[in-house]
């Protein structure tokens, strides 16, 4: 449910064969399309901080499941809350989860990847072995288990999804780093007696930032889908915080009589995921295609 997207996007293209070091400036339409959708979601989140048509947590059970009207643009849900306001405010949780997931995933994955590449034999091998073990725990499975251990919350979801993202990040960062290290300026820096930390900060990180941006975009897409799935299973964002996943869960019971309650949050999830996926794809095409990594 969640890892599959990581696999799909990070490895959706086979490695280019030798002799194809053509620098393409492709991907621009994808970047524009993805960027637009992502911006839309970001704007929703920012606007919802300052204004929503109604209070998204105010219940009005007498007017539950109301059709769209001037007061309730998209109607109301099973508790009489304003769906439009909830969809707006519901963008914050997925984005926060995405941000947290990427932060956790990068904090763990980037150092592992760089260190593993720099100490390719010995320690590096063991690091990647540990990474493989982590990879055996699919993110959603990890999230379910952590929710069982520590209770369902946004924090456990972020931790689990971040842990789930990390191995993929580590792998990609490792190969990116290996490429950087094989370049002349790296070799020169090494010859000049620069330490590994200098090398990592001055040469590796700036040169793999393209990869990192792509991974971040992908991580957001994964996190938003996973948050929706977890909330749907009742293991994600607890009430009353509006989140698209929770709205989908709530709407499930009234799908037959009020399909709008599920249509809007469903579309919101799809738009956000599509946006981040397109952005990730476009950026990958734009940055050095040789950075594409399969195992």
């Amino acid at each position, binding site marked *: *449910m*969640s*890892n*599959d*997207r990581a*696999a*799909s996007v990070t*490895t*959706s*293209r*086979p490695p280019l*064969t030798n002799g194809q070091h053509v620098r393409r400036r492709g991907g621009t339409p994808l970047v524009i399309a993805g960027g637009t959708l992502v911006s839309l979601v970001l704007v929703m989140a920012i606007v919802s901080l300052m204004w929503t048509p109604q209070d998204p947590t105010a219940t009005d059970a007498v007017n539950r499941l109301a059709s769209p009207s001037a007061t309730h643009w998209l109607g109301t849900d099973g508790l009489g809350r304003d769906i439009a306001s909830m969809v707006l405010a519901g963008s914050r949780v997925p984005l926060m989860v995405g941000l947290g997931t990427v932060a956790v995933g990068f904090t763990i994955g980037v150092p592992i990847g760089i260190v593993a590449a720099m100490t390719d034999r010995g320690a590096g091998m063991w690091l990647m*072995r540990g990474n*493989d*073990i982590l990879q*055996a*725990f*699919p993110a*959603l*499975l990890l999230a*379910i*288990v952590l*929710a*069982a*251990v*520590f*209770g369902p919350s946004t924090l456990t979801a972020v931790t689990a999804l971040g842990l789930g993202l990390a191995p993929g990040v580590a792998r990609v960062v490792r190969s990116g780093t290996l490429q950087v290290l094989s370049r002349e300026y790296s070799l020169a820096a090494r010859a000049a007696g620069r330490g590994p930390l200098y090398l990592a900060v001055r040469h590796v990180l700036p040169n793999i930032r393209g990869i990192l941006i792509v991974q971040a975009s992908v991580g957001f*897409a994964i996190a938003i*889908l996973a948050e*929706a*799935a977890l909330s*749907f*299973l009742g*293991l994600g964002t607890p009430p009353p915080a509006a989140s698209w996943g929770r709205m*989908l869960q709530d709407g*499930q019971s009234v*799908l*037959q009589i009020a*399909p709008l309650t*599920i249509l809007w949050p*469903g579309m919101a*999830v*799809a*738009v956000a*995921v*599509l946006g981040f*996926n*397109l952005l990730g*794809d476009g950026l990958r095409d734009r940055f050095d295609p040789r950075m594409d990594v399969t195992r």
Partner: protein
Amino acid sequence: MLLNALRRVGVFALTVFVASLVVFFLLGVLPGDPARAQLGLQASEEQVQALREQLGVDRPLPVRYLEWITGFFTGDMGVSYASRSPVGPQVLDALQVTLLLVLGGIGVAVLIALPLGILAAVRHHRPDGTLFSGLSQLGISIPNFLAGLLLIAVFSVALGWLPSGGWQPPVAGVDFLRHIALPALALGLVNGAILARYTRAAVLEVMREDFMRTARAKGLKPGAALVRHGLRNALVPVVTVTSIEFANLIIGAVVIETVFVIPGLGSTLIRAVANRDLIMIQSIVMCVVILVLLVNLLVDLLRPVIDPRLRIAS
């Protein structure tokens, strides 16, 4: 090559061992007392303590680990705290269901992905090729449980063609097919979209190869050239990816089983979490982890066999 294979199997075994430690100790600290949860409020402390002893949850963790892991591999996974019947048969039954569902999902995914991916590649400079690509992008963006809910709403409730949920074993024949159709579709749609992207990329790659250019130079249309020369080569990475997707489909099935009330690993896991059924959670998580690792191992072992290019490289 044999040595390499043996090394991989060794690494697999080691990984399974470490993973089992992680699973056990992570779940060993699970909050919630299974004995108390089982007995409810009215039980006295003595009764609860007695059940703790009976369930063995009062013994030291290393002892419990050893018992559990040896039991796990001999099929004696212990007794469920909730159902108080052996975990082994329950997990195996659920595993069969999940595997069938995943196979169904892969079937659907391949049926969607191959035509869509090939068309998108062959016509990638034309509007309809872009449309196919767009479709697969959109497919990836829809949560599979939402796809499941919509399928139920349309094909079960509105049209009444297929059951809305439940499960029948394969011996039930047509009834089995009727029950697996919608969940497999929900599972396969999303993964089919993912697979379509791999297929498209693989086919595009093959089309750039020299022999394809030659074929086209000789006057064959791109489609015909592809079918005659390139498809087999293009399918190699697709097959690899399909096996990788297998592991991901198992996770996708967790949610789909809940939507369609299917007694597989996923729904059993979710219920075990609600019951704080420690032994059950451990066994299912371990089962999934081993499956994921096993599929990875098989892919690793088979990749050189099915892809000659990789054999030379390594």
